[in-house]
């Protein structure tokens, strides 16, 4: 990570002192406009409508346990869901990170059995690698190939669960200081899992003869950028999962009666739903704020990415846990929909590693590295 701007809190204090010196102002002076633009709202409604139609709960269940619906994937590609994410200079539509997060939230909201987040993250990685990955990127843009990314640096010491590894044609990975693109081979077998996503468990040997698309410090930076974007997109999807789970809980609490009253009239129930709704609502705004900074002022908002991601994970887990519980015994059955959200809140995040470790990255970005 660039040290150019130093620890964030010190940078902010310096900014304030600069401002104070120029104008005598001592407070942080940024606006806080969370509204979506017209284009972003159009993206939200068009993808929301598509997914409401093409990813109803019945299809989510039908795709279990593998977690991939080929027809839905084709429909997403027809809407250029992956192509939109690639910069225009590399042959895509150049959508910004905010718009991509808008789509990702809908993906989460409808539990879409389609690897939008990993495919977008990986496609953008390929674009950043330039001409070395041009052929692979072209195949992705034309819809002929699906690409994903390995979320952890490859090590011979352990296998790695790769999201969409069971269906992807290529995996982009970091092997030491080389960014590689590995084509699908034998042994990329599905590993059925808690989150109902098409994971594959890949050993280091899967990347042995992979094509090197970038080397050295560039490779490390590109990979780090890819992970940061994966966190933003996954965070947005988690917010969608949280929203969907909370809706289920709220609707049930309105109609389910016990002891002579709809259970939503009991504060012990309603307050849990409110707290989950609050965590999701704040999480949505924090996530989009982080995406805006990543798009427009990356140096000033780097700390917001792990913050938004960690909070989104917590919010979605809370909302899903509350939903399962508010639905009582029914919530605990597999026939109940709440458990679909519960599994994916954990599954879509934990594949990236223990989310609580983000706290160390947040500390490093805010305070600079520890000196001892």
């Amino acid at each position, binding site marked *: 990570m660039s040290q150019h701007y130093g620890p964030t809190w010190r940078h902010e204090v310096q900014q304030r002192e600069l401002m104070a010196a120029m104008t005598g102002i001592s407070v942080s002076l940024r606006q806080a406009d969370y509204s979506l633009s017209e284009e972003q709202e159009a993206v939200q409604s068009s993808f929301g409508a598509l997914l409401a139609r093409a990813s109803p709960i019945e299809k989510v269940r039908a795709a279990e346990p593998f977690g991939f619906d080929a027809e839905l994937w084709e429909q997403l590609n027809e809407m250029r869901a992956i192509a939109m994410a690639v910069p225009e200079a590399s042959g895509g539509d150049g959508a910004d990170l905010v718009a991509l997060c808008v789509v990702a939230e809908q993906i989460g909201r409808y539990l879409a059995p389609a690897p939008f987040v990993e495919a977008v993250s990986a496609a953008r990685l390929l674009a950043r690698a330039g001409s070395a990955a041009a052929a692979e990127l072209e195949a992705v843009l034309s819809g002929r190939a699906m690409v994903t990314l390995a979320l952890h640096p490859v090590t011979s010491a352990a296998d790695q669960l790769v999201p969409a590894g069971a269906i992807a044609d290529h995996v982009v990975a970091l092997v030491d200081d080389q960014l590689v693109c590995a084509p699908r081979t034998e042994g990329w077998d599905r590993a059925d899992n808690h989150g109902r996503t098409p994971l594959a468990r890949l050993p280091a040997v899967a990347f042995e003869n992979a094509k090197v698309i970038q080397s050295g410090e560039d490779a490390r930076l590109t990979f780090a950028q890819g992970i940061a974007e994966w966190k933003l997109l996954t965070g947005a999807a988690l917010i969608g999962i949280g929203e969907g789970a909370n809706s289920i809980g709220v609707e049930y609490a309105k109609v389910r009666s016990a002891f002579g009253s709809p259970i939503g009239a009991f*504060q012990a129930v309603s*307050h849990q739903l409110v707290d989950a709704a609050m965590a999701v609502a704040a*999480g949505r705004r924090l996530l989009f704020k982080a995406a805006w900074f990543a798009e427009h002022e990356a140096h000033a908002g780097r700390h917001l990415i792990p913050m938004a991601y960690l909070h989104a994970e917590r919010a979605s887990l809370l909302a899903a846990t509350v939903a399962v519980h508010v639905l009582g015994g029914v919530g605990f059955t597999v026939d109940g929909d709440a458990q679909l959200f519960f599994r994916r809140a954990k599954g879509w995040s934990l594949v990236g590693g223990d989310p609580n470790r983000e706290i160390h990255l947040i500390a490093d970005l805010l*305070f600079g590295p520890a000196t001892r």
Partner: protein
Amino acid sequence: MNFATLDIDEATGALLSEAETFCDEFGEDAVEEEWETGSGFNERVHLEMGRRGWLVATWPKEEGGAGLTRFQASLLDMVLRARHIPLITKGTTDVVLGAVLKYGNDEIKAELLPRVAAGEIRFCLGYTEPDGGSDLAAARTRAVRDGEDWVIDGQKMFTTGAQNAHYAFLVTRTNPDVEKHKGLTTFLCSLEGAGISPVHTLGGERTNMVFFEGHRIPDRFRLGPVDAGWSVLAGSLDEEHAIGQVEVALERRGGMYGMVAAEAVELAIEWAHLSGPDGDRPIDDPFVRARLAEAALGVEVATASPGPMNRIASSDMAIAVSADLLDLVGPLGLLPHGQDGSVADGWLEYSHRFAQGTATYGGTVEVQRNLIAERFLGLPRSTPSSRNTNKVVG
């Protein structure tokens, strides 16, 4: 969507420089006095703000204001609060002013508004009673019509700023025979002759109990129709609950009640960079780093909380963060402002005490959760329906 640094034009820059100079000149004394008295008001500051038109900043200069835009007024407020200028009585005056503008007759407006703008007249809120806090509709302070006047009998509690104010925005019961929400009337009630008894709080704020015994006020100080007090309040209460408020494109760090906690986080970060007795800096300790990072995350989440949720999130955060930060700095954190060796001049110690009150200001976080449940999630009402508690008991 936009989080860019604000464009400050020359006029706004000059305004904010003037605000900083104002704080340099009057702030130190006001802040020290506030540590002593907790009164939420400094007369010199208030009158100097009045002189500059800052008490009604968006009003035209001819009416005693400063002709500022809402945006400029918000920035001015942010600067003053960042410098800890005591603004509680100014705040309650603002709330009541809204009701006076909407419901006051022309006579009292002409009589009072210029003096409010100048800072000579201040208002406080006469809502809560010893028997009823968040359940405002249960008010029992009686107002009985007698000729051209009303006679007030009763007691108000947590009437913050009564010692600085001339009038209280008083919620009274004018009809005990109807459903409780339908028998209330609001008045701008002169405090002259009322009994004011100080109440000191854990957070250091001074508030009051106010007693009315045969207290006579003219009918022209009634705000809104008789028995229509609940709808008059709805406008003001929504002001306090932050529902229906237009969001300006600015946000307070830490949210509505989280500014003190947000500042505490910065102070704790600064503290962590100081070497301890063993030559080690806490900021290099992974456990300290993780706790500070969690506190900073809490501030960001509270800041980002929308609408009426912000009030709850900011208060919950302030309570949790202030406790954790105080623990983090260790035993010296117990030393208050003014004591030799206190950490961050006693601001962390203060923030831990202050934060507790934020869960009840303007109605408790539980009441606010019910509001969100009913109005935003569409859940059924949780409070007993009015057919069961339509009369005030006792």
